[in-house]
């Protein structure tokens, strides 16, 4: 990087006299210019292998997916061009379109709820120094490092008709609330969403606690001197100070909600009916169970664009003064 900058400045110094109209370029200037050009090629040569691999494993499949999305294709025989028909199907088919509303519900559980809870607990925990803070953090953070498959299997047990949740409800006399959580048209989606809340809550909390500790203590002292209470302190100092962390938490959790697959696949397969079907599950079914590769690619492209848009909007908003 620095060598590039140096060679650029060298060129401008030498280049000024050489560009006098009618004058032939001086010999040293030509040599310097070719040297600069060679350096550039050397740099590219060094980067060629990683760039090539990146292109092969990321860019080529990306372009292929976009290409597939304009075809009707069973994965084996000759594909036929259908234009934007796959996109139209994704956006108009009532079942496929309903996956968007399911994702919106999941965003509430995966992103908004954990961030609210994370902010609250961070605000409470950072006000005083308790003993064993590291252990609490570790416990709350644990779900984040566990494999989703394991989490899904555990919660499938918890939500089972005779599982711990229903047993607990019956034990405290709330047996009327016990139900087949994952088999219930109304409750299956919120039940899945709460798993997401449990997973991402610890992550948000740890992120916010570390963010809060980076806020200058003088700001809090100044606020207290001015007579601000805990609530005022939170909104005036903690929340603005956590803007960066909020952006990270929002981006990661919202894209996680958009991509939800394993949780649904292991617990409900998208059922009962299609009440927990997510775009990622619909994509998997189209790509690997029913030979509709084009439709699967179209779903994938739309989801990728949505994830990118979410990330861009959040970054833009959080970096605005």
């Amino acid at each position: 990087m620095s060598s590039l900058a140096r060679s650029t400045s060298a060129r401008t110094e030498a280049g000024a006299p050489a560009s006098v109209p009618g004058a032939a370029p001086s010999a040293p200037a030509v040599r310097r210019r070719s040297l600069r050009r060679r350096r550039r090629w050397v740099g590219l040569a060094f980067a060629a292998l990683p760039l090539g691999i990146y292109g092969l494993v990321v860019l080529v499949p990306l372009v292929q997916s976009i290409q597939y999305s304009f075809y009707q294709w069973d994965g084996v025989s000759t594909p036929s061009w259908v234009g934007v028909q796959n996109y139209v199907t994704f956006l108009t088919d009532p079942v496929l379109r309903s996956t968007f509303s399911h994702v919106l519900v999941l965003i509430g559980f995966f992103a908004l709820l954990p961030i609210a809870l994370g902010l609250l607990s961070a605000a409470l925990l950072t006000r005083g120094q308790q003993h064993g803070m590291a252990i609490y953090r570790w416990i709350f953070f644990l779900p984040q490092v566990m494999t989703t498959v394991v989490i899904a299997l555990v919660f499938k047990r918890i939500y089972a008709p005779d599982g711990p949740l229903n047993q607990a409800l019956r034990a405290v006399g709330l047996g009327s609330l016990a139900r087949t959580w994952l088999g219930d048209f109304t409750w299956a989606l919120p039940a899945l969403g709460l798993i997401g809340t449990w997973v991402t809550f610890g992550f948000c909390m740890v992120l916010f606690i570390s963010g809060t500790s980076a806020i200058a203590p003088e700001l809090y002292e100044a606020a207290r001197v001015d007579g601000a209470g805990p609530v005022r302190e939170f909104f005036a100092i903690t929340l603005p100070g956590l803007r960066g962390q909020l952006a990270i938490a929002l981006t990661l959790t919202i894209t996680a909600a958009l991509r939800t697959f394993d949780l649904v696949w292991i617990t409900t397969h998208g059922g009962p009916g299609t009440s927990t079907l997510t775009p990622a599950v619909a994509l998997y079914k189209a790509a690997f169970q029913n030979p509709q590769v084009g439709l699967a690619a179209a779903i994938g492209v739309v989801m990728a664009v949505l994830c990118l848009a979410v990330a861009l909007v959040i970054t833009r908003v959080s970096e605005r003064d």
Partner: protein
Amino acid sequence: MNVLRARVATTAAVAAGLALTMAACAPGGGGSKTSDEPSTVSTDITSAGDVTLKLTDFWGSAEGKWIEQVIADFEKKYPNVTIKRTTEDWGQLNSTLNLQLQDDDGPDIATANNGWQSLGTLAKGGLVLNLDPYVKAYGWDKTVPTTIARQNQFTTDFKTMGSGSWFSTPMARTSLIGLYYNADKLKKLGIDPPKTLDELEADAAKAKAAGEVPFEYGSLDGSTSVLLGLQAVLANKDKLNDYIYDDPSVKASDVAMTDAVTTVKKWADAGWFPKDFAGIDYQTAVANFVGGQGVFRWEYTGSLGLDAKQQGHFGYVQLPQASGKTVGVGAAPGAMVVSSKSKHPDVAAAFLDYLMSPAAGQAAVDLGLVPALSPDVTVPASSLSLTGESAAAKTLDSDDGYVPYFDWSSPTMLDTLGQNLQLVFAGKMTPDKFTSAVDADRDAFLSGQS
């Protein structure tokens, strides 16, 4: 300035590259070569020289032991042949078989899944051999019952399943949907195994009155065996075959779909399923039944995973239709295909023929698996369930009474059945609407085919 220009140039180059790739020919695939029919075939294996074949299948435990036994017997019969076996789990093999068959080092023989989703797609893509010359050479059209043979056939324009050329073969084993019962519970309740649907309903009512769960079942992941088992008892055999084999003039209401759904819903409402069946998944329901909960269960043969001792405590019946004839959902547990890239199709075909032999059927029985195409097998009397299953297969072979799995009618049918059945149970859909949803699914698929 210069840096900016370079960036613009790079972007333009990338964009141009993308555009070029996009404009290039359509996504790859197996090409559109159809009807890979070997010109000359030979059934003489001994003089074929030393041959090594690769076989990929999805069989584990008892089924895995069976195929290894059959391979060993075949290799003993033809010492010049070696068969190398690879096994993968069902889902894995199903989603990658089309790629494996396009590979020059891919398997010579593989287990595909019948229906359009797997076998039809492979045949259409020219990845598997048209086996018609071998059908003639070995006389499979005479030894295999028509209702089983149709399961392996597609017309060479690939618009219709169930007629035309053979693209796979069955084997001396079968997988049926039928009714299992807990023999100890029946004895305790003082009832004999049911012989008709009416008797079954009477028995279920009796079991319910005695405080038992009549049918062990869970619908969490959309299990449909109860529906399809009942449909086979109620539907007209030929119409049901035609419906699944893409005859658009037959509608789902002609094949007792509405009756079957209505009956299942009636059983659910009568409390004949476990109380929380909507929250019970397939694996749990199976484990519950084998563990002693519930009196009856509609199930695919082989799926309960009964060990030798348990086989003495569970029985199996294939309920006949009201006419007295037996019709059952059944198919070979896998469609055996030969890769178009195989260098030794003759030897591969000989192995497929051996898989349908009575010897392979006896090997299946010896391992506790349901035999087919081999009427003279000896079943150990200690196994109650296998005795019932073998008797059922024998009746279906002689009555030519097989109907294929209903979900072969379209690639999305299994999802459609499972999802809509959950809606029916929740009272959110009527049986009539269920039947129209089934038709809508299949008709959408058929219109995409032509």
